[in-house]
């Protein structure tokens, strides 16, 4: 994948589209600092990710980035409450705010799962699982929310709801939102649509 220049403004909501294998997920990994570019650089709020070591990149991800996955990737043995809190449970680099439990309830309420906080993921519907994943991605108030095909495992009704939720939550949290999607019916909800195949490989 070759990108000459790709700028994203703070608070922007972008849909990334493109055929399978065109590098959509790779682009998200690069933006999150999970992968490093073979050449060039990624600058996030004046921070050059290329200059960060592995620990700094993890801290950057833990504090600045929220991730939503196609398969939800919830931890089966934890309750919804603990899944939402997971970034704080596994990252020593980010400090847990004093009233974090209130925030968990507030986030859960905003996506309509406040009555499911004590449940385990196995007892949730697909739509509910993705809502939990969205809450988890937002718990630490990230600057950038990256969602990789978040509606890929959902039915038509849930697709619209989840995209609406993502956009609403990103606006509420003043986060920049980048969503990778195949679904053409969802892309008109975003500020900008980027076809990755136009970057050229």
């Amino acid at each position, binding site marked *: 994948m070759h990108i000459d220049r790709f700028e994203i403004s703070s608070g922007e909501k972008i849909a990334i589209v493109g055929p399978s294998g065109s590098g959509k997920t790779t682009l998200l990994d690069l933006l999150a600092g999970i992968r490093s570019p073979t050449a060039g650089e990624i600058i996030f709020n004046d921070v050059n990710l290329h200059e960060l070591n592995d620990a700094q990149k993890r801290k950057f991800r*833990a504090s600045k980035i929220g991730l939503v996955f196609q398969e939800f990737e919830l931890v089966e*043995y934890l309750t919804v409450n603990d899944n939402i809190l997971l970034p704080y*449970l*596994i*990252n*020593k680099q980010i400090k847990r705010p004093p009233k974090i439990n209130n925030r968990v309830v507030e986030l859960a309420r905003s996506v309509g799962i406040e009555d499911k906080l004590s449940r385990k993921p196995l007892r949730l519907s697909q739509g509910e699982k993705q809502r939990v994943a969205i809450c988890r991605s937002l718990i630490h108030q990230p600057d950038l929310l990256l969602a990789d095909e978040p509606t890929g495992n959902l039915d038509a009704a849930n697709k619209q709801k989840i995209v609406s939720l993502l956009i609403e939550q990103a606006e509420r949290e003043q986060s920049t939102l980048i969503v990778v999607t195949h679904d053409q019916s969802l892309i008109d909800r975003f500020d900008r649509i980027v076809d990755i195949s136009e970057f050229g490989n």
Partner: protein
Amino acid sequence: MDSLIYLAVKYVCHYWVKSVILVLCITLAIFLPVAGTAVLDQVQLQLKSRAESTPKVIGAKGSRFDLTLHALYFDVVPPETIRYEVDKTVRDFGYGRVLPIYRTYHIGEDKTPIVGITLSYFDFRNLQIADGDFFGRIGHCVLGSKVAKRLQKSVGDDFVSQPQRAEDITSSGNVKFQVVGILSPSGTSDDDVVFVDIKSSWIIDGFGHGHEDVETVQDRDKLLSRDDKRAIVNESVAKFIEITDENIGSFHFHSSLSKLPISALILDPVDEKSATFLTDKINEIDYLQIVEPSVEIEKLIEKIFRVKTLFNIASAAIFIVTGLFLVLNTLLSIRLRSREMITMYKIGCGRFTILGLFVWEYLIVILLSVLLALLLSTITVEYVQQMILQMIR
């Protein structure tokens, strides 16, 4: 660190079936060698200490091992008895303290042995009275601490001895005894015995008895003949089955005490030299043998050590198999949880933190296993130790 423990606990609890299986496997791998070694060490210690506190034992010729076990634990009855006169013979040698033992009938369903001794035995074994007193006459008995507890007998209670064998019809067998003392626990086989005076044991065995005064018998059905010297009565004269202060005078033996049986003599020699002289003297008597319990028990311990070696090999095999099982479980777990780990990494978790989570999960399982193994070992050691000692006897 706290969060990792929290996550690990959540994992262990959620997959509780897997955790229980792991805990049981590790528990078994720890429990077998720990409990096995503890049991065998305890058995060895008990055997040794009892043997070392019993310098020499004299008995009828036959199995040296049976004689040793009989003198130490009273469980095995030697096939042959010796006459009480040996007691006097050995005493006359003047080489040390002589303590006769005569194992006779038993009481209770668990066949607690009744052992005839002299009062010196209590002093020799340093046995203390917890309640009551030592026996002062025939018909009294002193109970070992475990017997008293098991039979729920206390000072003032009584019990009736039972014949050893159903076909043992020649002896009186059923004699009523009064409990006059309970021994303090000694942690030895003395806790499991009913002690009576050696004369009482002969009365149980039918060598002595008490009955109504034949001089006063007038009933023609009972009196067979009477002259100036003696009266001859038949079996219908009332025999006493209980020895009381009132009838004790009527108890008598129809033969010389020196001819009555004893099953062993414990000898506590004055010194090594006396022990050597005594050994030589006893070896000259063709129907007697003298054994040194510590030597006989050492032979047994050698056999136990062989068993222990086999046991250690089996334990090591179980340990290795459990280890391999844990490795397999870890590999499968890593594979099954790869997505969970990748997700954690993507949201900012370090590799060492993920490793730490695994380590904590195993530590919790291992900790539970160790606690369970120790608990089981503690419970098992006492029980199995007694079982092995019973088997040896």
